[in-house]
């Protein structure tokens, strides 16, 4: 009977994406704490009588039981820990920011079931901060993107020249070069963002919210543009959600 034994595990997870499957099911993409990114079928979840209720809606933090299948895993039980999605539906800009966080997490975990604990904790923390409403949604998003890029090994250089490594807050920024560049290394076409923009990016990368919260609108807008450009440069396919983030 060993060949028929079902394997089953329990983990906590963030719901990244829900896609319709067949008549009434959904494929749920979960970012789990110990098993990395996992796709599993939630059977009957679209029926109004579903036992899952709202617990498998996007962006929620849940405790989930996964039954391993040969082709697709199946979700057994789910308990809601903190269903952040509920707080984003009343706030359209935060909903779009949460979508960009979820898509980034998905793209930075290309291999299914490969644990990525640091990125998991960062993702959970970002959604929690977004739901908490203490900081502007776009700041939470850009801070997440900068730190997630850092984990992936390609954060933009902000405190040293991306090319020669000379310390200091250099004024030019080049996406292909890898971030801030000194006058000697500056390639043609490098941008010259406002100093406040680079200060903001450094604050977001370090999680210095005192500086970030005090930043003005133009610095936030320019920083978002540079962060997005840097992220897109390193991803093979463009993120679909990022251009749809409502920064109003």
């Amino acid at each position, binding site marked *: 009977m060993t060949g028929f034994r079902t394997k089953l595990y329990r983990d906590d997870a963030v719901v990244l994406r829900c896609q319709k499957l067949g008549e009434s099911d959904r494929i749920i993409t979960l970012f789990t704490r110990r098993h990395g990114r996992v796709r599993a079928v939630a059977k009957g979840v679209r*029926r*109004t009588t579903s036992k899952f209720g709202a617990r498998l809606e996007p962006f929620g933090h849940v405790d989930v039981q996964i039954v391993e299948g040969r082709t697709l895993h199946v979700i057994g039980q789910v308990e809601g820990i903190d269903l952040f999605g509920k707080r*984003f539906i*009343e706030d359209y800009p935060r*909903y*779009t920011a949460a979508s960009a966080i979820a898509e980034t997490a998905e793209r930075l975990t290309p291999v299914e079931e490969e644990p990525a604990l640091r990125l998991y904790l960062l993702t959970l923390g970002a959604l929690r901060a977004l739901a908490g409403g203490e900081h502007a949604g776009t700041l939470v998003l850009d801070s997440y993107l900068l730190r997630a890029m850092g984990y992936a090994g390609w954060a933009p250089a902000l405190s040293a020249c991306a090319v020669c490594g000379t310390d200091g807050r250099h004024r030019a920024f080049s996406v292909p070069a890898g971030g801030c560049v000194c006058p000697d290394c500056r390639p043609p076409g490098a941008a010259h963002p406002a100093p406040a923009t680079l200060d903001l990016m450094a604050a977001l990368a370090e999680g210095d919210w005192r500086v970030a919260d005090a930043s003005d609108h133009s610095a936030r807008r320019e920083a978002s543009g540079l962060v997005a450009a840097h992220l897109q440069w390193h991803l093979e396919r463009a993120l679909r959600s990022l251009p749809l983030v409502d920064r109003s």
Partner: protein
Amino acid sequence: MYEGAIQDLIDELGRLPGVGPKSAQRIAFHVLSADPADVKRLAAALQRVKELVRFCTTCFNVAESEQCRICRDPRRTGDVLCVVEEPKDVVAIERTGEFRGRYHVLGGAINPLEGIGPDNLRIRELMARLADGTVKELILATDPNTEGEATATYLALLVKPMGIAVTRLASGLPVGGDLEYADEITLGRAFEGRRAV
């Protein structure tokens, strides 16, 4: 793998939503053993749906002429407009018999993860319909899930400054489900108890 025509049919069926390879094979062999007249009717229905059915130019519901049956019906009131995601939601609401106004079918919900933003839905067309002041109440009947709720939030922000009453179906619809699966009684109650947003 089978030969020729039967494998072609299995392949085509397998591309349909919700049909896996096993189901495709089962349907194909069912067709093979079915009465030729039944099969002809099925084939004709498949062809007719592509030839005849289009989208209503006013509300984007499915229609067999320029306008759908509901937009053409003079007994339907023009001052209440109900926004839904898909034509199947129109069917679900019509079943309740609670609604005498007209519809606007968005063609989905805002879902940035799938690359669907406001510009990919028929929101511009909705705003154009609202511009002449006929509509006094806009009912947001998008699905009671995250994407549907966020779409309703977005629309409410857009429409409220126009001085139009915006309402949302009453809670009581289970969150996470599709509107089309709500039974008539629950959906009817949700309509009656709609609340201002």
